[in-house]
């Protein structure tokens, strides 16, 4: 029963990692941009959630109503104002610029919010649990996992059943020809980044309810997101969810064996999968 519990908890944790990863996956899929500042944007979203909840007294989940559009606007402006200029045949400029952005965001957060760990107060949601079979499942992890499924389903649906998704795929396939069809790739990229940071906002707020956070933790979230994307296979959002779950389970199993092994075992699982399936478990080039 103990081990079953470990695996179930790991699976639910994977939902959070999938949310970290979904934005990364979307951005890479549409514009081949590897966003090094993604983890810091998650932390930024958590701090925005903190500001909204402490200023208005709203429940953190209700604060999403403000945080998601705010992050969306930040995403669009960031893409149009800065990141579009870095895109081209060379992969290096966007890497460098987003790395710089990561440093800027971290230091900005440090200035505004100090280095003290913060946490959002979600009341009883933090500790509530359900007894299922012999297991005690936290309501928050269950909710996180459900949100991850809904978000990924929503992104998938947007990609394959809307004009916007068609435009995303067309621009991703061939930017020049998409321009010839009247699609302004700069705008499309802006919308993609807005969508990605909207998802990031959800991930950041759920992170901030679950654990305490400080300005320095973005890098770790970025790594978990990356690993989930790569394990699942680039450009496949359901694969990203599977990747998150595998990473989560590996971490909780590692922690069960020895609490110090939690992070390490996640990385080992990632390396192992990369060694046997270099393209991830479910690769699909066309996102």
């Amino acid at each position, binding site marked *: 029963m103990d081990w079953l519990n470990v695996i179930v908890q790991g699976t639910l944790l994977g939902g959070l990692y999938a949310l970290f990863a979904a934005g990364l996956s979307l951005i890479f899929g549409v514009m081949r941009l590897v966003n090094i500042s993604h983890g810091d944007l998650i932390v930024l979203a958590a701090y925005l959630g903190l500001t909204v909840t402490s200023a208005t007294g709203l429940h953190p989940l209700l604060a999403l109503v403000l945080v998601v559009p705010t992050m969306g606007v930040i995403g669009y402006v960031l893409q149009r104002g800065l990141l579009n200029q870095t895109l081209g045949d060379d992969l290096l400029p966007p890497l460098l610029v987003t790395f710089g952005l990561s440093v800027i965001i971290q230091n900005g957060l440090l200035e505004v919010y100090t280095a003290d760990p913060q946490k959002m107060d979600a009341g009883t949601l933090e500790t509530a649990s359900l007894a299922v079979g012999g297991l005690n499942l936290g309501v928050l992890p269950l909710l996180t996992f459900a949100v991850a499924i809904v978000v990924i389903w929503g992104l998938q649906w947007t990609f394959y059943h809307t*004009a916007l998704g*068609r*435009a995303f*795929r*067309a621009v*991703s*396939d*061939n930017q*020049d*020809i*998409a*321009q*010839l*069809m*009247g*699609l*302004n*790739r700069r705008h499309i990229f802006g919308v993609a980044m807005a969508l990605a940071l909207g998802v990031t906002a959800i991930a950041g707020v759920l992170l901030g309810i679950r654990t305490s956070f400080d300005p320095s933790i973005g890098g770790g979230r970025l790594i978990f997101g990356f690993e989930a994307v790569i394990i699942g296979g680039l450009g496949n959002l359901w694969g990203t969810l599977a990747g998150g779950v595998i990473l989560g389970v590996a971490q909780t199993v590692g922690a069960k064996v020895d609490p110090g092994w939690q992070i390490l075992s996640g990385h080992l699982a990632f390396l192992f999968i990369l060694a046997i399936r270099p393209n991830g478990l479910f690769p699909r080039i*066309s*996102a």
Partner: protein
Amino acid sequence: MPEPILQIQGLNAHYGDFQALYGVDMEVSEGEVLAVIGSNGAGKTTLMRSITGLLSNGPGQIKYHDKDISRLRADEIAIQGLSMVPEGRQLFPSLSVRENLMIGAQVGRKGPWSLESVYKLFPILEERKDQQSTSLSGGQQQMVAIGRALMANPDLILFDEISLGLAPIIIKDIYDALPGIIGEGMSAIIVEQDISKALSVSSRVYCLQEGRVSLEGTSDTVSREDISRAYFGIE
């Protein structure tokens, strides 16, 4: 005298330090079909990329409907009703046949072309509408590429090497379909290596050689000698 729809004056085009077009002058009238011929590397595709805005141009070099479009982005030009069937088809591989056609309609221009009329022109596309575009044969892919350009309901349509890499029988089918496509008052520029095909469907012809216009004439009076001189540069 019909109004000119596209006027090109002194167009130069560069790829980095390499100059691909030198002072090209060209004019297309409303409803006219123009052929552009020339050997490999003569600058035909560069000319198409300049007109459609994929290459940036100097100011005042290209006018469309009397409006300077030289500095506009490709998507802004597309919305004004200028569309292209690119060389090598260049369909979107992750889109189905139907989605490829729908992308063409994204500019939102009104006109005779819709999914139904494209399916009527190329019935095979309706049968294959849910397939990945790259699973089609070359000829069928070319039909998708033509349909995709038509869906924008353009005033001027550019065909870049539509017979390249296709079997002769398919090329014949596509050229047989062209008059039905270009009717409805649409103007067209046909870029083609197959000179006799190009002459048969066009009213006027331009020949490019090493980035310059080496010949300009009406398609039914231009002589074979003139063409080979303009084409190969042999005196």
